[in-house]
């Protein structure tokens, strides 16, 4: 008994030492200012130097929290109990958050620098007139292949993935709308189809893809492709850019049938406590130099046309990442298809996963 009490006291002692040292670390960060900005963003989705620069320029202290999926972020914002001033969700989630009044309308008189953004990325269906959101990054869904194992001439479209010689070669991103979407687009239907027959047809088609699938994975796709664990992958352009940076044999193509166009935009959630700081941050990120530095660091495509001028030419001229207007026509943005159909997509996807049992 005495020994246990001693142990407990020791643990309490260590706990307080830890607490004091974390206070000390906080102080050494030089964060005496109480004027904080709480950012809720994807992990590793901003150049940390820019956060320092922002703190220095504006005097706000940034508290940076991260999420790993739109849905997880949504749950946190919806439930409250937190004080995020700024979040960066994807477009379909923004659509949903607008409908559920989880984001605040933006006061455009407080926003400077929106003119730097390419008009093609403004006033889109999920947020007319950008009343709620400001573009941060954008990209597409496409195919990555390794030229050591795959002839680039042979893979141009989604339908090429069905070739029997790619048996067990393909890694797919673990997302219901992405994978069912491939089926839909190969059949020539819309990514946002709400037609049961079209969905069934797409699913029947996907059944034939199952033998070619090596694995359905998420962020790890990047690592696997760099390690050359698989020769073909279906993934997002930003991820692809990262892979190609690490492994020169990898190439990214936008399928001929078209693909998904996605956006990650900055919004001010209803949980915001410090809107002024949020506006300051939006304006800071709209600055072409900042946007260019961020795009260079993250490797995703920036919607900031003036920033593009500051980026290396080979980056901006790569049509796979900054597609021509012609190619853009085939791209489709996810719409909020409602719970019923989201559920159907998901059930089909679960069934697709089950097909691949050994």
């Amino acid at each position, binding site marked *: 008994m005495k020994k*246990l009490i001693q142990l407990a006291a020791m643990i309490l002692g260590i706990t307080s030492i830890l607490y004091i*040292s974390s206070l000390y*670390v906080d102080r050494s960060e030089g964060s005496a200012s109480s004027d904080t900005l709480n950012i809720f963003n994807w992990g590793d989705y901003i150049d940390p130097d820019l956060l320092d620069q922002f703190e220095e320029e504006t005097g706000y202290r940034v508290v940076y*929290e*991260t999420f790993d999926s739109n849905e997880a972020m949504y749950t*946190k914002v919806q439930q409250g109990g937190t004080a995020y001033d700024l979040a960066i969700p994807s477009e379909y989630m923004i659509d949903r958050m607008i409908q559920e009044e989880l984001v605040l309308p933006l006061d455009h008189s407080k926003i400077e620098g929106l003119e730097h953004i390419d008009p093609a990325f403004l006033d889109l269906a999920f947020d007319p007139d950008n009343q709620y959101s400001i573009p941060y990054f954008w990209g597409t869904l496409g195919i990555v292949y390794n030229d050591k194992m795959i002839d680039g001439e042979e893979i141009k479209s989604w339908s090429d993935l069905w070739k029997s010689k790619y048996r067990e070669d393909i890694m797919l991103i673990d997302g219901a709308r992405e994978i069912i979407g491939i089926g839909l687009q190969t059949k020539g239907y819309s990514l946002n189809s709400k037609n049961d027959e079209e969905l069934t047809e797409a699913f029947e088609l996907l059944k034939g893809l199952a033998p070619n699938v090596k694995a359905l994975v998420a962020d790890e796709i990047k*690592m696997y492709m760099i390690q050359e664990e698989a020769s073909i992958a279906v993934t997002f352009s930003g991820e692809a850019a*990262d892979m190609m940076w690490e492994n020169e044999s990898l190439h990214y193509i936008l399928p001929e049938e078209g693909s998904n166009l996605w956006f990650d935009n900055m919004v001010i959630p209803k949980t915001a406590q410090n809107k002024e700081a949020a506006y300051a941050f939006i304006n800071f990120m709209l600055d072409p130099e900042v946007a260019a530095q961020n795009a260079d660091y993250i490797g995703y495509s920036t919607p900031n046309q003036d920033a593009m001028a500051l980026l290396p030419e080979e980056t901006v001229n790569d049509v796979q990442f900054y597609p021509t207007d012609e190619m853009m026509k085939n791209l489709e943005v996810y719409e909020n298809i409602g719970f019923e159909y989201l559920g159907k997509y998901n059930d089909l996807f679960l069934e697709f996963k089950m097909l691949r049992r050994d």
Partner: protein
Amino acid sequence: MKKLKFSWSNAYLFLIFALLYTPIIYLIYYSFNQAGTMNEFTGFTTEHYGALANDTRLIRIALDTFRVALLSSLIATIIGTLGAIGIFFVKQRKTQVSLLGLNNVLLVSPDVIIGASFLLLFTMAGFRLGFYSVLFSHIAFSIPIVVLMVLPKLQEMNLNMITAAKDLGANNWQVLKSVIIPSITPGILAGYFMAFTYSIDDFAVTFFVTGNGFATLSVEIYSRARQGISLEINALSTILFILALGLVSGYYFIQQQQRNRKRKLTNIDPTNHQKAVSP
């Protein structure tokens, strides 16, 4: 013959050690890799340790993680031990089984469900998310494992000891202090250890109930994984692991010395024939 058999069992143990430590050694090895990935070793460097030293965010998160883990497992151990004693002394077998069932619910529920329902709970109560919500959740999901660790010890306890102590006029508190607790100490320590392990390990629950700038290592590692795990995390894990290794063996040897001293004394005492309890 006996010697040979003994060495076989040692060989087996060695194999298990090797299996359990291979990934750890792999991680440590690559924390010194010049290339930024755990893929190919290109050369020796300590730059990831340098990067770690400058990453105050990560250091603070590491400190917070251990604070939550140490504290939550301590509280969970206290509540869980008392709870286990409570369950043990319930007379009706049916009640006992149903209590145990309730106890195990959190052990079996997937983390995502626990996290989501705790989040609902905290927000319904208007609780501000942050350190305390994480602490309470960790206490909550660690309690059942403590109960499961302590209960078998109670079942093995010699009940006559309690009757004897009572006959000698001991009150309940004295019985608890001098009979029950000493005989279940190994279970309590194991429970604390497991609770600590669960707390350090948890991602999903913490993710849901954290907020306002508070994070634990696993949440941070998961969200950083989007860009591939940086070797900075390997470096941090290496340091923590070696620290833990040092602490555990240090604690053990101190204990050992103390016990050796004590054992000499207890051996003389003829009334103390109850087997010495090891931690």
